[in-house]
């Protein structure tokens, strides 16, 4: 076979996060196919080396070492959650191989060093976006938070709280639930008695679907604001009619006119057989960015590739990717709303100051 360039990719293909792992890797594979169909990178085909990390930090370390030491990948991409991504980031940084995180939200990931980048929002940034959406766009001031107890939920909550004042929001109460919960009866009962103007609830589609369904069933009718964790057709399937009107902050705009986004949404559904979600788009984006950097660097030197990644300026399905000094991306937040059983554009938050990621 012709010589290939290897891109390392790890995602939770089994275990509790397997669904996100599947979306991310399908997105990544689609990107690789599209690139190879166009002749690859500088005449070489790219090859994805995909490993399952079960979203476990302890598993991600040997995987990162294997990708670097045995598979000799040119660049690594994480399609996994923050824990696994953080531990792998350390290994890549130490080996000085560039590494891109597709959708993990933990702030420390890029702080591992100058070889680590992220093509998605930080949790805190998105939380701030959420605050603007609630307080400014929707004009709701008395808010109850329902926070998912993991790094994703916690950093969203921190971001939301930090910007709440700025938009005149008072947080009347905050409840926490864990990743495994699907039954929210008691939280729902309490929220009902709190009688807020809006609910800011973090979660993934598999927790948010039941949560929203149960809130609505109990007669809570105020706006519910979510984030990219909701961003999946599955959320609408689970919550059914209750999903109508739910608004989220995310990075994939379903009604986009941008060709990259439109192409991706169509191509993904064709390839995978189900509708694209944010995670899939993120996996796709990260591979696109990696491939573009490999093309520009046109070298096997990790340093050159790193520099090429740092200089990225690429239009992809989730927007235009440009990195700051720390390796964080700066882009607009897409607000989507459920209407008629599908995600549609609600509004866009493009406030560079509010959305500025940390630079060190």
């Amino acid at each position: 076979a012709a010589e290939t360039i290897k891109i390392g990719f790890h995602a939770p293909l089994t275990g509790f996060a397997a669904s996100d792992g599947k979306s991310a890797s399908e997105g990544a594979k689609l990107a690789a196919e599209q690139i190879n169909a166009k002749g690859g990178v500088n005449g070489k085909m790219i090859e994805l080396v995909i490993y399952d990390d079960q979203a476990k930090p302890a598993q991600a370390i040997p995987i990162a070492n294997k990708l670097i030491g045995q598979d000799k990948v040119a660049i690594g991409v994480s399609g996994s959650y923050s824990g696994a991504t953080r531990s792998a980031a350390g290994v890549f940084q130490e080996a000085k191989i560039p590494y891109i995180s597709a959708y993990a939200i933990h702030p420390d990931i890029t702080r591992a060093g100058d070889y680590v980048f992220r093509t998605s929002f930080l949790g805190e940034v998105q939380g701030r976006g959420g605050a603007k959406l609630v307080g400014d766009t929707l004009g709701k001031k008395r808010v109850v938070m329902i926070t998912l107890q993991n790094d994703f939920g916690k950093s969203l909550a921190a971001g939301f709280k930090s910007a709440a004042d700025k938009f005149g929001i008072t947080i009347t109460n905050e409840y926490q639930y864990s990743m495994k919960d699907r039954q929210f009866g008691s939280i729902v009962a309490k929220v009902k008695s709190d009688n807020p103007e809006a609910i800011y609830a973090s979660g993934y589609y598999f927790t948010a679907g039941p949560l929203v369904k149960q809130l609505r069933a109990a007669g809570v009718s105020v706006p519910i604001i979510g984030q990219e964790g909701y961003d999946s057709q599955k959320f609408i399937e689970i919550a059914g009619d209750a999903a109508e009107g739910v608004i989220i902050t995310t990075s994939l705009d379903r009604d986009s006119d941008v060709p990259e986004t439109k192409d991706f949404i169509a191509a993904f559904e064709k390839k995978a057989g189900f509708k694209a979600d944010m995670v899939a788009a993120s996996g796709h984006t990260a591979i696109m960015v990696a491939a573009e950097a490999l093309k520009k660097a046109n070298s096997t030197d990790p340093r050159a590739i790193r520099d090429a990644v740092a200089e990225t300026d690429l239009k992809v399905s989730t927007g235009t990717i440009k990195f700051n000094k720390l390796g964080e991306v700066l882009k607009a937040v897409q607000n989507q709303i459920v209407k008629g059983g599908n995600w549609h554009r609600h509004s866009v938050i493009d406030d560079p100051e509010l959305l500025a990621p940390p630079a060190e």
Partner: protein
Amino acid sequence: MGIYEVSLATIVLINIILALGLNMITGFCGQISLGHAAFYGIGAYCTAILAKAGFPPAVTLLCGLILAGASGVVVGLASLRVREDFLAITTMGVGFLFLGIVRQQEALGGELGISSIPSAGMSKIGFMLFVLVLAALAAAFSLFIKRSWMGFAFDAVADDEDTARVLGLDVAAYKLSAFAMGTAMAGLAGGLYTYFARFIVPDDFGFITSITVLSMVAVGGIGSVFGVMAATVVLTLMPEFFRFISDYKLLVYGALLFTVMRFAPGGLAGFLQTALRIRKARGETG
């Protein structure tokens, strides 16, 4: 050895210390524990915090070991009150409680864990050798205990603690020492893991980890030091062997765990013993 192999070897050795700790409690003394990961976690968090405060590895590891051992004694007190399956579930509860509390402690990094932990000041290979020495010590210590009168007393407690008591054994003291020694080893393993990963989150020390360690002990053959070590090597590396079948990896792992218990319930040690006995019997008749 490439970096991949070194990292695997290190994690295997850490797990050996961890599993030998549980073997002390469950294998030797017969007190089933489903919460071993909590002590692993206590050692890890203690080490991480001290290391970030600037203490050298010798100090941090020792503190982790002592803190875990002391907590082990506290949980051991529960073993004086509840027995067998009640104890199994109580220790499981201790695991969940530890995790639940750590998750909500911002001082311990909460859900985000602790990162940027300083290195142990050794090269990767150097660190592996360091862990190797400690693992060898742990194994030697286990063998030493097993052969001593203490091991004999543990056997008696594991078999029938009421009778042991009637025969003049201070059962409580022995149970507590088993917990203290076993959890201290877990604490040491946790500290080593901290220096290895240099980033820890609560989930590293969850129920799954406890179960994994217990299966190392059970697959190895409860109480058998060499069996447990062999099983630890196999079970730690198994996910790596099966990487190529990504999608089926966990299925194969689960099925294998089941199969070993189903067809070789004495674990590897029991399996080897049976095999040897058959060979011996054959030798005698032949």
